[in-house]
């Protein structure tokens, strides 16, 4: 079905961009929430967001063209990608292909942090949960400062922050405070899982239980978001020509200078992990 349709560019803001120029240049620090469930992993989308922040292009939005004004040395915005979910090896091939960067180099304007490894390292030394949380976020903050020192406001992408709640015994508000402090210095993109068994929608029986903490974190973060991008499977089941649905919607916090371009797309992932988008 989709193979006969014309491929579309992903447009998130009304200036035709995935990450708006006004957000990258302005003083306002935005929060974008990317939600997904098991089976619709957003790694392809995150590579595209990182590419758009850094180079102004996006491999699944050919309409954005080749932006010669930006390069890894002169980026649109420096990018820090911090993941609690995947190690550097997982993204190295796609980063090399689409961003033209060696993810392991850890230099320049695009950096990758494997936070789960960092966390396990601290925990193995016997640190208590609050110290571990502080250590992990200090590490991110140091990298953000290094990128900010080059002049432009960094874009920070954090994948699966909710895994911290699953791993160490911390309060939801402690984690929110740490994320809040990072958001004060960056345009933050948070990637979160919203699998239904992990979410209690109306009331929490046990405030210290995993479901309660996960629900509280995700919903509190969604209430802070300017933009919500959700990817979910097709409601009609498996199809050969469409992998899932991507929706872009306004978050509860409106933006002044730029508007969210709401829309729904079908996306198709090929074997190499490249995506093509079509209007739904």
């Amino acid at each position, binding site marked *: 079905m989709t193979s006969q349709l014309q491929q579309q560019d992903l447009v998130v803001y009304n200036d035709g961009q995935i990450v708006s120029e006004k957000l990258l240049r302005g003083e306002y620090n935005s929060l974008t929430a990317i939600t997904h469930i098991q089976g619709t992993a957003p790694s392809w989308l995150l590579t595209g967001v990182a590419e758009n922040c850094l180079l102004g292009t996006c491999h699944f939005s050919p309409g954005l063209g080749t932006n010669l004004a930006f390069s890894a040395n002169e980026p649109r915005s420096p990018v820090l990608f911090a993941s609690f979910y995947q190690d550097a090896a997982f993204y190295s091939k796609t980063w090399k292909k689409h961003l033209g960067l060696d993810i392991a180099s850890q230099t320049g304007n695009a950096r990758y942090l494997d936070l789960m490894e960092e966390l396990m390292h601290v925990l193995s030394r016997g640190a208590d949960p609050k110290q571990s949380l502080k250590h992990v976020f200090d590490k991110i903050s140091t990298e953000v400062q290094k990128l900010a020192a080059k002049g432009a406001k960094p874009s920070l992408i954090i994948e699966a922050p909710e895994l911290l709640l699953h791993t160490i015994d911390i309060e939801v508000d402690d984690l929110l405070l740490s994320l809040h402090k990072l958001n004060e210095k960056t345009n933050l993109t948070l990637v979160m899982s919203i699998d239904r068994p992990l979410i209690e929608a109306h009331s*929490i029986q046990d405030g210290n239980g995993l479901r309660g903490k996960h629900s509280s974190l995700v919903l509190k973060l969604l209430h802070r978001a300017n933009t*919500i991008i959700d990817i979910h499977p097709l409601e009609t089941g498996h199809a050969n020509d469409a992998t899932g649905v991507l929706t872009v919607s306004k*978050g509860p916090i409106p933006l002044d200078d730029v508007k969210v371009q709401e829309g729904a797309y079908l996306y198709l992932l090929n074997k190499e992990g490249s995506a093509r988008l079509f209007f739904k």
Partner: protein
Amino acid sequence: MASSNSILLINRLLSLKEQSPFLLVEDSLSQSSAYFTQEFVSRVPTTPIVYLSFETVNAPSFAANFVQCLGLSVEEIHSKIESNASRKTIVMVDSLNYIPPSQITKFIKMLVHPNVILYGVYHNSIPHIETQDYPSSLQLLQFMATSIFEIRPRLKNMDEEEVEHQMDIWRFPIGEINSSEFYVTLTNRRKSGRSVVHKYEINSDTHEITPYVSKAKEDAVGDEELLKNLTTFNLTTSTRQKHARQEVELPFMMAQNGEGAVGGAIVYQYEQDDDYDEEDPYEDPF
């Protein structure tokens, strides 16, 4: 007449001319209170606003004093608020969800002052922690608030049930949610204890507030309109007549309490003038 009164009330409340020291705003993921707050702020340009932030990263331009509160205790928050007792001040709390139920009354009590108008937002989408033998934060806030504004999305193509279902399964309906046009249900409590409820439609771009009339009510009014000028007889019913009609107890309602109410049996009760015939082939077999 009633609609002009309701408009007057909300205009007076939003411009702080009506005495109401605690304004509680309830919102959800489908319709944020941000647009209502913008509307409120546009009507009180000269009143200083102390903004208590639990979730706002960027200090709003209207905030005279922006206080970062996440991670602070109730006492620490209070000590950070500069008090200027002589001037009317708005204390705005971006989310009351971060205060535990056991602390919420203390938090409100500390902020309340004769010259302070407290404007607090509560997100209904964030699940509350159930506590035994103690009311939830929302129940306590609703009890303390003098005016409650409940914000709902103004849906264009979907009905409320459909949107609710979509939000329950974590789908965010496109073009339907978080718009600058929305509905507000206002519950205002008078000093006498009487509370009045009004519904409005607000457009925060044009600053237009109109009374909201539900579709069903609109249709009923339409029927009355159709009957007008058709004949010289008065075919319409007045409010008093409608009320009287609702009060009439219908005869079959009595039957629900009798013997036949259970099991669907046909029960015939002989009355004084009935002629009972033992040979009657059509007699009730029961």
